[in-house]
């Protein structure tokens, strides 16, 4: 940098002392070149990133100044003023480039930091969501001492005699899917039951079909088939007496038995 200062002083001295002899056009060219040079030689960023171009701008300007003291050198004066101005502009561009690159490096670090923070935040939110879902599922299920966690889908999800799941089941089934996705090791057994109306063979088939249609929906929504067992118990294991309509309604159901977190499922009945 120390090599630039004397040049600059020389250049300024030139501007002050010798301008008188130049023609109007040459004077304008000199003014422009000198202004451009002033702005780069006083800019520490430019000096740092393009010292050689700044020096050349100063040299060319000094040459133009010197020539301006003679008559009949107008085109040379303008030529060196032009070169000087170009060197100053090139120096300025180089400096802008370096500044941009430095900003870019800083931003890149900032970006990495933010990405990390975002990943952590998302992870925390997924964990929170998982916990929330788990609570939801647990609130929908009961803990049976022999069988583990059991969730009952009541007969409101099926029309009488029908195995097809009604659309009102979607919300519960969707929760189930999310829960299984967040707990990839858990497996389920889907058990179908009917009331005691009709003959036992038909009921066995109906109970199996109902359980299967819940399983189908889970598979359709992305749960791996291998994680699902389906079984029909017909009218066995009623939860209420079949004597009343209310009792029968409670007995028409699908139960979902969850394994523990390691995938261990309680024994079948």
């Amino acid at each position, binding site marked *: 940098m120390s090599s630039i200062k004397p040049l600059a002083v020389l250049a300024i001295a030139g501007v002050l002392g010798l301008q008188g002899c130049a023609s109007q056009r040459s004077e304008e060219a000199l003014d422009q070149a000198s202004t451009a040079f002033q702005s780069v030689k006083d800019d520490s960023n430019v000096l740092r990133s393009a010292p050689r171009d700044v020096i050349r701008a100063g040299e060319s300007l000094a040459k133009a100044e010197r020539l301006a003291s003679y008559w009949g050198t107008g085109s040379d004066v303008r*030529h060196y003023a032009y070169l000087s101005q170009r060197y100053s502009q*090139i120096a300025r561009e180089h400096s802008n480039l370096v500044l941009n690159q430095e900003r870019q490096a800083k931003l890149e670090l900032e970006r990495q930091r933010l990405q990390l923070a*975002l990943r952590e935040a998302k992870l925390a939110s997924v964990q929170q969501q998982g916990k929330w879902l788990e609570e939801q599922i647990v609130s929908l299920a009961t803990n049976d001492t022999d069988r583990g966690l059991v969730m009952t889908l009541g007969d409101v999800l099926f029309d009488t005699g029908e195995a097809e799941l009604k659309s009102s089941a979607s919300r519960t089934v969707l929760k189930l899917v999310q829960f299984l996705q967040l707990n990839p090791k858990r497996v389920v057994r889907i058990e179908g039951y009917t009331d005691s109306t009709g003959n036992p063979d038909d009921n066995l088939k109906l109970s199996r079909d109902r359980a299967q249609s819940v399983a189908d929906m889970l598979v359709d929504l992305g749960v791996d088939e291998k994680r699902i067992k389906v079984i029909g118990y017909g009218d066995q294991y009623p939860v209420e007496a079949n004597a009343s309509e209310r009792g029968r309604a409670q007995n028409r159901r699908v139960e979902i038995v969850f394994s523990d977190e390691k995938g261990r499922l309680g024994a079948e009945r």
Partner: protein
Amino acid sequence: MRLSEQALEQAKAVGATDDVAELKLAEEKLERARSNMLSESFRDARMRAEQSELDARLAEAKVLTLKSQEQLTLLQSRVDRLRKQLGEQR
């Protein structure tokens, strides 16, 4: 003359086109320098070639700065988006 040609090639190599005013100037001046040579106006040829070289170098520098500016803008928008997402997350 050789230097001007090299500077022009380099400017084009980083992606400068005639849309960059300085590159167009550089090409025109190099053309004129060549015809000056043919008519043996060596002084004019030298000056045009010298100017052409610096025009081309400025064109190159401008293209590089512009590109880095675009990258910077892109990066800034990514950082802004990340900040926004983080804001929503909290």
